[in-house]
C-alpha cells in the first residue's frame, strides 16, 4: 500500500493494456497488405473441429491459392502433422503454456514462412473461447467455429468472442438430429451481439455448406490481395 512516507509523482494517462499488442498487430496487417498475404484467425473450443474444417477448406482452395497454416498449441504437433498431410505448408507454434496467441508470436510464425510467398495463411488459435478473443493477432479477418454438440447457448456464455469475429461457422450440422440445438437461436443471439456477423452452417463430414464458407473466405482473400 501507499504510505505517507513515500512520495509519488503521479502520471495520469489512458492507455489500453492491449496497446502494445495492438500496435504490433496493426504493423503486421500493414506488412501483410504489402506482401499480399491474407491472414485468417480461426478460433474455437477444443474439439469443435478446427483442424477437420481446415483440411476440408484446404482441399477446396489449394489448387488456386498458396496456403500456409500456423497451428498454435500449448505443446504438441498433432494438428500440424494432419495439416501437412494435405500438402500445404504447416508450422506449429508452441505458446509455452499461454492460452492465446498475441501479435508478436503470430509475426514470428509468419517469419518462418518467409515473406510474400503465400496468399492465405490460417492461424489456428489455441482452443478456447475466452482468451483468444481479447488479443488482436494482426489477422485480416477472424472466424470462430461452434459445433452442434457444444450447445446453442454459447453466444450467451462467450459474448466477447461472438462480438469480435467476422464469421461464425456452425459445424457438425449433420449431428443436428441428435442434439437439442437450435440454429435459429444461435443466429439470433449472435446477430444481437454482432449484427454484421456472417454465419455458415457446415458439415465437414457430408460436405454440406462447405462451398458457401469457402466462397466467403476466397472472396475475402481476393479482396485483400487485390486479385480479380
Amino acid at each position, binding site marked *: 500500500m501507499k504510505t505517507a512516507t513515500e512520495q509519488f509523482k503521479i502520471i495520469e494517462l489512458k492507455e489500453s*493494456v492491449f496497446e502494445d499488442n495492438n500496435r504490433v498487430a496493426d504493423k503486421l496487417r500493414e506488412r501483410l497488405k504489402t506482401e499480399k498475404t491474407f491472414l485468417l484467425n480461426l478460433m474455437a473450443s477444443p474439439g469443435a473441429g478446427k483442424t477437420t474444417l481446415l483440411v476440408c477448406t484446404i482441399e477446396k482452395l489449394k489448387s488456386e491459392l498458396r496456403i500456409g497454416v500456423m497451428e498454435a498449441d500449448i505443446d504438441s504437433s498433432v494438428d500440424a502433422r494432419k495439416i501437412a498431410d494435405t500438402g500445404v505448408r504447416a508450422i506449429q507454434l508452441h505458446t509455452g503454456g499461454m492460452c492465446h496467441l498475441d501479435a508478436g508470436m503470430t509475426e514470428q510464425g509468419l517469419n518462418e514462412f518467409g515473406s510474400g510467398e503465400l496468399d492465405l495463411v490460417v492461424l489456428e488459435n489455441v482452443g478456447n473461447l475466452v482468451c483468444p478473443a*481479447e488479443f488482436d493477432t494482426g489477422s485480416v479477418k477472424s472466424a470462430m467455429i461452434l459445433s452442434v454438440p457444444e450447445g446453442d447457448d454459447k453466444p450467451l456464455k462467450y459474448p466477447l468472442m461472438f462480438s469480435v469475429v467476422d464469421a461464425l461457422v456452425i459445424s457438425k450440422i449433420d449431428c443436428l438430429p441428435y442434439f437439442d440445438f437450435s440454429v435459429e437461436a444461435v443466429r439470433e443471439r449472435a446477430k444481437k451481439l454482432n449484427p454484421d456477423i456472417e454465419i455458415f452452417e457446415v458439415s465437414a463430414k457430408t460436405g454440406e455448406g462447405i462451398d458457401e464458407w469457402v466462397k466467403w473466405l476466397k472472396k475475402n482473400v481476393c479482396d485483400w490481395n487485390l486479385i480479380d
Partner: protein
Amino acid sequence: MHEMGVVLNIIKTAERLAVENNAPKLGYVTVQVGELSGVVPGYLSNLWPMGAEGTVCEGAELIIETVRGIVRCLSCEKEYHIMDNLVKDAPVCPHCQRERFAVLTGREVMITEIGVLEQ
C-alpha cells in the same frame, strides 16, 4: 488463465512509460477493468507479484478499478447497466424490453495512472 497475459501486457506498457518518464521504479499502477472485458480482477491481483518480479513494477501496488458495463438500447436509446438487466442470461432493456444494444463502457482494460517513486 489469460490474466497472466494481461498482467504481462500491463507490465510491458508500464515499462515503456517508466522509460519515457525516467523512472527506475514504480510505486503503483492503476488499471480500469471493465465488467464485460472477461478479465477477472482477483486473478490479476494474484498474478501481479509474479509478473512484476525483476521489472520496474517489482514491489509496486496494482490498483484495480472496476468499470460498469453500461449499454445503450438501440430501440429506445436509453442507457442501462447490463448486469442488472439479464433475463435468462440475455440482456433486456428495462425501459422498453427490447434486446438490441450497443456497448458504451465495460470492455476496457486500461492503465489510467502510474505512480513514480521519487528518489
